[in-house]
């Protein structure tokens, strides 16, 4: 065992990379849940985004087009969820599960020809002098643009929820859809837009894994990150900045356990690999004592007649 092989600066830099897919998916889901909808299909939308982005960027040679395709892919899949829950008034838990099962199958089907292919690389930020600074350079100034976009998105969602009219309407819809309806807001319309936003974010998060973090395509490569993102929203008590904090925490655990595996710690690999999931459970237990912050209408079906 050689713990000195773990470089703290690289650890923090790779932690930020590991946290980004989680952050993107969780911020999307936060907005969805704030509107009063529980979409359990995050895992499905992520994996479809992962393969859609991968396929498009391999075919076109442009990572940017791939990322856009991933967002469209995730949003398209979430359309199905929006239709089922908002228009066909189906149970949200069951519909979300259906979305995940379907997404996993669909992505495996789409990804058949892409196993072992290398995607075009995404350029990372490279500012002369600043990016070369010791410690600060690798941590803050030499990542890919999507990572910065994730942080920007967190800030934007925080601002929109707290200070804008759109955010207010969204929160009202989530807290009490009957009251929002009575005030003349279009509950269904608000929720559909939120679901599509969540789908696009999850898709982008998925593509970040297949295009930047790994970067290659394997079946089922999201490996539960979508579900951890769902847990993260609970962990964060539906607050954007806490999502960022949580994502970095989970990213840190994941990177650390990978580093420990590589360093050959005496703990068996399987136990290290299960640690992120076990820690998610522990965190859920600690955070779920406080139920007050969940949106009031979360998971409830809205129909104007009832």
């Amino acid at each position, binding site marked *: 065992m050689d713990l000195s092989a773990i470089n703290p600066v690289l650890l923090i830099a790779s932690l930020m990379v590991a946290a980004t897919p989680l952050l993107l998916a969780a911020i999307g889901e936060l907005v969805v849940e704030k509107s009063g909808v529980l979409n359990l299909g995050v895992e499905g939308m992520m994996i479809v985004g992962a393969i859609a982005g991968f396929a498009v960027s391999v075919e076109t040679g442009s990572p940017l087009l791939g990322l856009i395709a991933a967002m469209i892919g995730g949003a398209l899949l979430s359309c199905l969820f929006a239709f089922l829950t908002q228009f066909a008034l*189906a149970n949200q838990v069951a519909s979300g599960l259906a979305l995940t099962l379907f997404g996993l199958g669909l992505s495996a089907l789409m990804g058949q020809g892409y196993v072992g292919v290398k995607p075009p690389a995404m350029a990372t930020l490279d500012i002369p002098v600043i990016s070369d600074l010791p410690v600060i350079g690798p941590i803050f100034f030499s990542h890919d643009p999507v990572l910065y976009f994730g942080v920007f998105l967190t800030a934007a969602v925080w601002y929109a929820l707290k200070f804008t009219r759109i955010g207010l309407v969204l929160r009202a819809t989530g807290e009490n859809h009957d009251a929002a309806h009575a005030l003349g807001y279009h509950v269904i319309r608000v929720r559909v837009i939120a679901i599509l936003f969540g789908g696009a974010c999850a898709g982008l998060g998925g593509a970040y894994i297949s295009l930047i973090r790994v970067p290659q395509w394997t079946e089922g490569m999201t490996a539960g990150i979508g579900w951890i993102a769902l847990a993260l929203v609970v962990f964060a008590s539906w607050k954007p900045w806490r999502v960022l904090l949580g994502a970095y925490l989970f990213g840190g655990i994941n990177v650390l356990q990978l580093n420990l595996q590589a360093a050959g710690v005496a703990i068996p690999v*399987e136990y290290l690999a299960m640690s992120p999931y076990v820690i998610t459970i522990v965190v859920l237990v600690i955070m779920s004592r406080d139920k007050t912050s969940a949106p009031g209408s979360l998971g409830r079906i809205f129909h104007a007649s009832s």
Partner: protein
Amino acid sequence: MIVLEKRPQPSRAWSLMTPVVAVVITMIAGGLLFAALGKNPAEAIGTIFWEPLFGEYAFFYRPQLLVKGAPLVLIAIGLSLGFRAGIWNIGAEGQYIVGAICGAGAGLAFYPMESVFIFPLMVLAGALGGWCWAMIPALLKVKFGTNEILVSLMLVYVAEQLLASVSLGLLKNPQGFGFPGSRNLQSYESAFNAELIEGSGMHWGVVAAFIAVILSYVLLNKHILGFNIRLTGEAPRAARFGGVNPTRLILFCLGMSGMLAGLAGMFEASGPAGQISIDFNVGYGFTAIIVAFLGRLHPVGILLAGLLMALTYIGGEIAQSNLGLPAAAIQVFQGMLLFFLLALDLLTNFRIRFAAKGAA
């Protein structure tokens, strides 16, 4: 303009019809999918649904229907109890794995001793293993109000790692030339879950599935506990006023579904699969969710849905080897089925009216 009007009572006719209509629509949509993949849709659908039952090699495939259907039905019966009461155990895959590990482990502990008591002991161990694994989300929910959906699902990933760990370590075959995986239980007579009637596919797991169907039917229709489960699902407020104890209900539903999933895993490991290996689980725990919904959370419906889903597995394998249909296409097909089912469920609870705009 289309207007939805809530029915005072869910329609019984539509409730029975939706699974059938959903299957038909899925066949059509599946046909389109297969056509898009460059296969002849009629041939592909025929291969999946006709070939295993009435084709040239049907004598070989028909027993498989029971072998593949049994774990699906067993797990789905357990899940349906919880789903009815709004308790969502979606980690059946994990409970299935742990049940298999415990069951096989109990048997292998006695190797090479032969005794009639070994197999019953393995059954108990398998059931207990699945039960314990499901008790984790159950107790956390009861004690701390933790979301059982997320916890049970996280435990699937933990169980998968556990499976990898035991197939490489604890249960690894000492005479296996270093290959991962346990001893083959098929060649250990006392632990082998053999066919009860030669060539029928009927093993103890199939028997257990039938018993589970009957018992859950009795439970739901004749027992106060079953009534409480249904009441909690349909009218939670009324259930609370009626004095239904939610804690007991959560422990019972999650424990029961874990136990049945554990049993399914144990019967699979000791019979058709024969050993514990890294890729032992094939997603029965997740497919069983589709089975439970397709069967309308009703025991008899689940039995039929389980057989149908087993058919798509077997037919899918035939289509894979004969037509070169990708394995993932079948997964998509199964996922689509759940979509159409959920969408069509609208017709059970709502009436669709075409009204002039402004009239509503």
